[in-house]
């Protein structure tokens, strides 16, 4: 433990909370406006009806559910990766975990909203909640949508707690520096934290137990999202491989989302000393691994269908392989497999920029994958006379754009009020243990913002 180093870390990581530039307000204003646009589109759709969308017979599922699956997938990066890294005690995890966990919480909120929008009449959402309604009817527990309700809400609650618990010591740190209303708010959030050995030990024990519990929950969530498809006898949906395929895809897109978020935070909040090339290298390696796994699943899925040559599945297969959806398919393959393979398998190319470019490709590719799972299968159902096509309506496009803006907005607000890197965990990671190990020299960190360490918030 070194006082000067620790003070610098505190000052650097509290800097975003101390000052607010004009650019920040402009960013929040722009993101808020785009988010509001989506809400207006949703309100307009509620008033005039779901006929404004491109949903039709036979394509009953469109952009809303594509984005639902996409955002639930993005949510997988955070808590799952954080939990795994905590359990294996990877030392490089410390600056990454909170960035990742925040993604999970926000992506789940956004993803969870989309089925409500898709409902058309969201006020009937309470039909999903398991209590006997006025007609004496309960929800059908056999429906995968009910499983979604339980799985997503369990994951959301667990992820929120997993995000909140390690924040408590940081809230206490801010409380002790703050004055006025901020002191009251952070005082309430720190729930009487003092930092006694008992509190530290219990907090770390709780995080370990939650990490163990949350990994199967995370896996179950996307498996259950895949069951929304796999339980239906629809061409190319009714597959036993869908569970692990969706989980792999979700982790894949989640890591990509995390890399992009970290790169933006690093640049905007000047966290170059904390989110280093090492973190991008490690996450780049994980992304490459998931890319290979994703390629394996796609190959297995496609080969099995092609070999089976089923009359009902082949029209979907060829539509996505050489037909009207083929451009999307090949762009998806290029983004999800070829690009990561080129950029991330070579040490020289696996730079921060390389990882970000690969991640942007993966996010695009995974969105296209969700589109290719939903739309072609519904367009080419078993009987040719029911075949149709789908073109999104403007509310669907507006809502989709606003989900991205909402994600950025929530993240922007989050980093303004909460240190995006866990201060106590980062400090803890910079210190060696007691004797007989020699106490190492403190890492040299820039003195930037050190003078602000004692500044009242």
């Amino acid at each position, binding site marked *: *433990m070194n*006082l000067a180093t*620790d*003070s610098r870390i*505190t000052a650097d990581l509290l800097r975003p909370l101390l000052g607010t530039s004009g650019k920040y307000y402009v960013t929040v204003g722009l993101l808020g406006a785009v988010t509001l646009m989506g809400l207006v589109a949703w309100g307009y759709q509620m008033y005039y009806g779901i006929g404004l969308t491109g949903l039709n017979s036979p394509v009953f599922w469109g952009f809303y559910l594509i984005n639902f699956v996409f955002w639930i997938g993005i949510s997988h990066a955070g808590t799952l990766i954080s939990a795994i890294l905590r359990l294996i005690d990877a030392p490089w995890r410390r600056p990454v975990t909170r960035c990742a966990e925040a993604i999970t919480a926000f992506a789940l909120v956004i993803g969870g909203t989309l089925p409500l929008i898709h409902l058309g009449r969201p006020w009937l959402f309470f039909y999903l909640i*398991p209590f006997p309604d006025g007609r004496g*009817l*309960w929800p*059908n*527990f*056999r429906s995968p949508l*009910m*499983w979604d309700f*339980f*799985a997503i809400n*369990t994951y959301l*609650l*667990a992820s929120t*707690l997993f995000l909140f*618990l390690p924040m*408590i*010591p940081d809230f206490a*740190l801010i*409380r*002790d*520096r703050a004055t006025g209303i901020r002191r009251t708010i952070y*005082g309430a959030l720190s*729930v*009487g*934290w*003092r*930092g*006694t*050995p*008992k*509190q*530290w*030990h*219990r*907090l*770390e*024990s*709780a995080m370990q*137990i*939650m990490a163990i*519990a*949350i990994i*199967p*929950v995370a896996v*179950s969530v996307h498996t*259950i999202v895949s069951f929304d498809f796999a339980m239906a006898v629809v061409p190319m949906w009714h597959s036993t491989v869908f569970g692990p395929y969706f989980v792999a895809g979700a982790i894949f897109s989640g890591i990509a989302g995390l890399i992009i978020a970290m790169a933006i935070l690093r640049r905007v909040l000047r966290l170059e000393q904390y989110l280093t090339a090492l973190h991008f290298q490690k996450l780049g390696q994980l992304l490459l691994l998931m890319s290979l796994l994703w390629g394996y699943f796609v190959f297995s899925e496609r080969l099995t269908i092609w070999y089976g040559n089923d009359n009902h599945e082949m029209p979907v297969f060829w539509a996505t392989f050489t037909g009207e959806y083929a451009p999307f398919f090949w762009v998806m393959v290029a983004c999800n497999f070829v690009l990561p393979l080129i950029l991330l398998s070579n040490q020289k190319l696996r730079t921060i920029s390389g990882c970000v470019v690969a991640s942007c490709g993966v996010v695009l590719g995974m969105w296209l994958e969700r589109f290719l799972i939903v739309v072609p299968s519904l367009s080419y159902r078993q009987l040719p006379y029911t075949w149709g096509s789908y073109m999104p309506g403007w509310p669907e496009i507006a809502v989709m754009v606003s989900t991205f803006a909402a994600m950025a907005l929530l993240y922007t607000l989050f980093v303004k009020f909460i240190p995006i890197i866990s201060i*106590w965990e980062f*400090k*803890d990671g910079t*210190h060696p*243990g*007691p*004797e007989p190990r020699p106490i190492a020299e403190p890492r040299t960190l820039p003195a930037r913002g050190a003078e602000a*360490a*004692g500044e009242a918030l």
Partner: protein
Amino acid sequence: MKATYALYTDPESAKQAIVALKEMGVAQSDIVIMSPEPLEAYEFDPSEQETSMRWVAVLGGGIGCVFGASLPSLTQLLWPLNTGGMPIVSIWPNLIITFEMTMLGAIVATVISLVRAARLGRRLPEFYDPQVSDNKILVGIANPSDAQLPDVEQALRGGELKTIP
């Protein structure tokens, strides 16, 4: 509340102060320690290393499991809706609900046991120094007797000595 304590900038000195307090006969449970980081390797308070939290989590999981199995099964029995000739109580779908409720029970029980064991959710006590957040380690005792005071101050001499009168 009266208290005598010292603030240390390094864990080694804090550890020495704790050892000195114990040597003069102060019980571990009477020594108040606060640190800005876990510093568990220094074992400031070895008695705090034992916890039953994992068993509480198992118990919570068990309660969640029973609830998760009962909710759909009893619902299906009380409001029997025959769907497509399938059994009224559908084991496979109910297993999914049971699993989710089991994990939720374990997680919620863990958080409740944390709040209880770490005494969270209470007002910040009087015996606290905000300098702990400035990377200092606090070691002291509450309500020392007048006879104890010189020895306590001697034991804590390695740090910045403070008192709450």
